[in-house]
């Protein structure tokens, strides 16, 4: 019973992080029709920025803010400099480009920061909270993780639904031509979209890293889980991505707890294949949507 509860709690925490990462992928997919596979190494680089600041003796929160800020800049620069030239071109070019970035960032991080595992601090306890004599798997950092992701989602929701700039971003994603005719600076909105997605990705990276080990490849599997979560939710829907992330986090936590942690990635692959065969439009697709 206790193991069941602990596995579920662990899954909930992880699921929140996957949800954030899936949300970052969906934000970029909606606006530029690119699945940004380079999201993982982008988040990894910003986590290393935070690690350098912490190692220099500064506080965790300064490092946290610096990582998010560098994520914002990195996302904007990458969209403006590298991705912009291939937007509107053949889809495959954009995908190859993000994979090229994947390799570049990976190798750069290994050259600059080294290829070994380094421990990353956590601002709150990483020991389970005691409730009535038994320790449950909900840690202080876990609570922080859940709250941080919820706050971020709330802010994004406010931005997109309640502000003028959010409306412009939605318009540029929905129909760039018409938005441009109506006076929206579509290019800037796309840059902003990438920057915001990159911040959300960086947050996920920091939350995965907290109290654990980081090395240049530590986010690679997370991009897979983020993608599976996004497909679970339909790839086009931010709400779906969040629900998909939570479901996937729970499912993978149970696989890890009851079968074996080595098979977690395989379980994600199987879930992805089942979704693609049974409900290719995602769990919440109303009709069998088909784009030609």
């Amino acid at each position: 019973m206790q193991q069941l509860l602990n596995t579920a709690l662990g899954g909930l925490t992880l699921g929140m992080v996957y949800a954030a990462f899936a949300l970052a992928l969906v934000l970029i997919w909606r606006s530029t029709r690119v699945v940004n596979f380079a999201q993982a190494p982008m988040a990894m680089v910003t986590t290393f920025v935070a690690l350098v600041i912490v190692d220099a003796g500064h506080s965790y929160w300064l490092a946290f803010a610096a990582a998010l800020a560098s994520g914002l800049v990195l996302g904007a620069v990458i969209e403006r400099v590298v991705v912009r030239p291939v937007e509107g071109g053949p889809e495959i070019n954009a995908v190859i480009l993000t994979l090229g970035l994947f390799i570049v960032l990976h190798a750069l991080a290994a050259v600059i920061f080294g290829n070994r595992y380094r421990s990353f601090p956590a601002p709150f306890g990483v020991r389970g909270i005691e409730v009535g004599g038994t320790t449950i798997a909900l840690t202080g950092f876990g609570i922080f993780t859940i709250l941080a992701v919820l706050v971020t989602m709330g802010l994004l929701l406010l931005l997109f639904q309640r502000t003028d700039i959010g409306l412009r971003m939605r318009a540029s994603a929905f129909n760039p031509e018409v938005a441009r005719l109506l006076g929206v600076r579509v290019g800037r909105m796309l840059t902003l979209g990438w920057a915001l997605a990159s911040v959300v990705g960086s947050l996920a990276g920091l939350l995965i890293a907290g109290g654990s080990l980081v090395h240049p490849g530590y986010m690679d599997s997370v991009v897979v889980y983020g993608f599976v979560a996004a497909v679970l939710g339909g790839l086009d829907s931010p709400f779906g991505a969040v629900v998909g992330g939570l479901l996937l986090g729970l499912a993978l936590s149970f696989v890890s707890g009851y079968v074996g942690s080595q098979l977690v990635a395989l379980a994600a692959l199987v879930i992805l294949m089942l979704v693609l065969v049974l409900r290719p439009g995602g769990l919440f697709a109303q009709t069998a949507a088909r784009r030609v």
Partner: protein
Amino acid sequence: MAALRARASAWWAGSILGRHLLVALLGLVVVVVVLESSSDFRNLQLASMAYLGIAAGGLTVLTGLNGQISLGHGALMAIGAYTTALLLDDREASTPLPLVVLAAVVVTLLVGIAVGAAAARLHGPYLAGATLALAVAVPGIALYFKEQLGGEQGLRVVLPDIPAWVLDLAFFVTGQDLTRSRYVAYLAWVTLVITFVLLANLSRSRVGRRWRAVRDDEVAAELAGVHLGRARVSAFVVSAAAAGAAGAMMAVTVRLAAPSGFTLTLSLTLLSAVVLGGLGSLAGALIGAALLTFLPQVVTDLGVDAGLSDIRAAELAPLVYGVVMVLVILLAPAGIVGTVRTALVKRRLRRSAVAQTGGAATTDPTSPATPATDPATDPATTTSKGSTT
């Protein structure tokens, strides 16, 4: 004499299979000359170039002709390699090597069907994502089934003795005794030549035309009666089979199948080799494989000279691949082979335009049907000769 030349050129234009076989034969002669004149160490390096070339060939057909991306060819190679290792586990293993390779291909093919049927029939990034998941998942399988698959250490591959007739044949042709590493290199290169002939022929056949039709215009292809899903899945499955053969050759060359050999980096560098050489071109795949084999040593040495530690200098090679991959997509999306070919055709056109001012240039039957700015276009196969019936 003129009639003979005309008949020869008519045969060259007409018989695609004959042309491919002739090129393959010439290629084999080059392979024999190169392998016989190089050292044991170089032979093994060339063997690894061959298996990377086989996998890149499969990938270039998928990406260049069908416009899909696989990030899991490293994992598919792992499946071929582990199948080989399980069949060649001791010296008394009696399975003949060709059968082992065939088994590796079949097993990989089945995995390809399972993944492809789920992901490849859909439009969009699904195949890329699913194959990425495959690349991350496969090493975990080897770690979980420690008893059967050897865990972190992996499985050793015992190469069966060289058959007597191969030894005799090698001695008869070259006058030298065949060393084991040279034997392995021959195996890998013969597999490469066979795979490439099959892939080249397939891509010039009805199947290949369907793949290209789906890549270029889905609506038009469907109106013409092409089943989109079937075309996509079949392209992926063929590509996966090539990766299986590559994995078998890798197992035989390295004599080990271990999870550390099949990281995500392998899959991604294979893709960069294909992009660099030129999408859809088998010659480009071979160039890319040569770079993957020989570049790391050069770059790592440069890095060590520049004062980096060994471990960090080893990361310079992927850095170069990645940077080159981004630059190729931004500046020369047709890759090395495509860019060179376009430049050659342009020069020839200019010359013939100068020689006979008038319409000669526009009627040249070899002028490319599509501009090289479309990266997915395969300059090798979209010339107007491609539709010869």
